[in-house]
């Protein structure tokens, strides 16, 4: 069953069609990578999926409900309840420590709960850094705090725009493993990326060019296995050979 459906979405800035009659359906629990050159409309699409922007024309149907004409206030509520956001630049509040940054999302959602927030940090392997300020954390750690914040309210969909754009390979792998974990647990993921390596670990790859979808295919090499396990698998395969 589809969690999210974009129907004939266009986003027009003056003359420019940032998105041009795009239709896309995301199933529950699906992990989609959106790829494409710079300026192709990836972020624009993310913003529309994330209820942070409205399409010029077309419908956005989330959980069977058309939300594309809802008021901003309603959209904010909707987005708050259903979607977790992961940013390329992390966007942590620099005067709050890691656990407080996670709690901010709880605060505006329902009630801050430090235990739950700590549990979320534990999931991304940062329990021992809970009291550190963002300035005292590495880029990878900051991104993990950002992910913990995105999943604290148990969203149905995690939207990530270039989540690994500012990370080195090791950290990239940590983040991708967290994504795999989330995917296993049934969370839907939409990940925008330039990076083929990040794209190719998704279930499905959608390519955008000039605001249009030019290809949309299943990734045959998709595997839910965590990176660590995967390496072992590969070793095993080699051994077999």
């Amino acid at each position, binding site marked *: 069953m589809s969690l999210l459906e974009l129907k004939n979405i266009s986003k027009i800035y003056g003359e420019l069609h940032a998105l041009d009659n795009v239709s896309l359906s995301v199933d529950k629990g699906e992990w989609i990578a959106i790829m494409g050159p710079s300026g192709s409309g990836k972020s624009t699409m993310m913003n529309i999926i994330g209820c942070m922007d409205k399409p010029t024309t077309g419908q956005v149907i989330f959980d069977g409900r058309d939300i594309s004409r809802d008021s901003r206030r309603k959209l904010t509520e909707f987005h708050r309840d259903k979607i977790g956001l992961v940013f390329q630049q992390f966007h942590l509040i620099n005067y709050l420590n890691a656990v407080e940054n996670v709690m901010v999302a709880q605060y505006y*959602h329902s009630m801050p709960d430090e235990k739950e927030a700590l549990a979320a940090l534990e999931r991304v392997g940062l329990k021992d850094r809970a009291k550190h300020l963002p300035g005292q954390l590495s880029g990878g750690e900051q991104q993990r705090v950002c992910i913990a914040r995105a999943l604290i309210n148990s969203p149905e969909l995690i939207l990530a725009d270039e989540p690994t754009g500012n990370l080195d390979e090791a950290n990239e792998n940590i983040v991708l493993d967290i994504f795999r974990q989330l995917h296993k647990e049934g969370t839907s993921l939409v990940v925008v990326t330039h990076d083929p390596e990040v794209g190719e670990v998704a279930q499905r790859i959608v390519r955008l060019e000039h605001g249009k979808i030019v290809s949309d295919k299943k990734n045959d090499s998709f595997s839910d296995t965590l990176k660590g396990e995967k390496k072992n698998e590969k070793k095993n395969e080699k051994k077999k050979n």
Partner: protein
Amino acid sequence: MFLRMLRGAFRRQWKKLLMIALTVALGASIATAMLNVMLDVGDKINEELKAYGSNITVIPRSEAVMDKLYEADGEDDKKDDSRNREYLEEKTLEELLTIFWANNITDFSPLSSFSVTVNGESAELMGTWFDHHLEFVKKGTTYQRDTGIINLRSWWDIDEGEWLDEARLSGDKYAMVGKELAGKLGIKAGDTVKAKGSAAEEELSVIGIYSSGDDDDEKIYTTLSAAQRLSGTEGMYMKAEVSAITSPDDELAVKAAKDPSLLSGDEYDLWYCTAYVSSICFQIQEAIPEASAQAVRQIADSEGKILEKTELLMSLITLMSLIGAALGISNLVTSGVMERSAELALLKAVGAKNSQITGLVLTEIMFTAAAGAVGGYFMGYAFAQIIGQTVFSSSVEMSGMVAFIVAVLIIGVTILGSIPAIRMILRLRPSEVLHGGH
């Protein structure tokens, strides 16, 4: 969480917030000072102006008519009417303490002038009260007052000797001599002079030599009783000077001054119960039917005008300082919000409503402004005292009313100053800020 975020914001932005607090403090201090001075200044200016003499003269009614006649005729030789001159009974002065506005009458003194010879030279002699103790019982009430020209001639400089203090001296054969006359006749403080009037001759001892800067410098002042003996006008005086605290004239006062009987009942009551010069004069005439009380126009008018102008000026300064504060606040708050736009956009992205973000930012600003306002209030207190001391040489009373008004003004100014920033918050699109750089 809210508190943690507030605390974090305070810690991180303290420089900006301090600036906001200072801006508010400045505005609040000026508003406090000006409003307090303004409320206090009516009396202050009146007291100040009172130093320049009386604002009402009381003369016999017939002379009042005569003066008016002369005025209409043009400049005739007024001085030649000494034969016709009428006097008022000294006892009538008591009435000044019994009228409704008695408490507004700060000082009064009878004045009679006669031509005499002093040590053989002709001079003008004035009989008056210096610091006279008046005490009487009327309708079972005891009235008393120390009054006289000591307060009505506050600009006199005593060159030699001292003020003639009736209470400390026995008898009444004393005089103060103007600087010019004293110079001409070689009189010094402590001398005795021989004064000869139309009815008698007296030896007066000179208590002090004064310089007044006007034609009083050529006169000799003595007690009213001594002057009465010299001129044979016992129990009488020629005119009285009265100094009263008055309300500035407005339309009603102007209308009433023409003819009180033209006023409607309500207007009449309002006029009668307001300390206009004209209503005080009117009541003096009611109490002393044989007298005419006249406002010394120039001074009474200018009092009102100065008061009006001062208040206008102070209102303008207050207004300007508040506008300045609002502009300053708006500048600081807006730039603060701009600097934090990523943070605020993020709060939106994690689900904060506009109202919540606005609430957060406004709380910060309100706390800061409150601190600034309290500081400013005390600064304003100091300013008000400085203004009071330097301009009016007295302290300015602080009124609770002003604290309230300033609080309301500062809240208004702060909200007004925050409007551009709030609009900015409302316009903030997380999609644009957070995915900045595309």
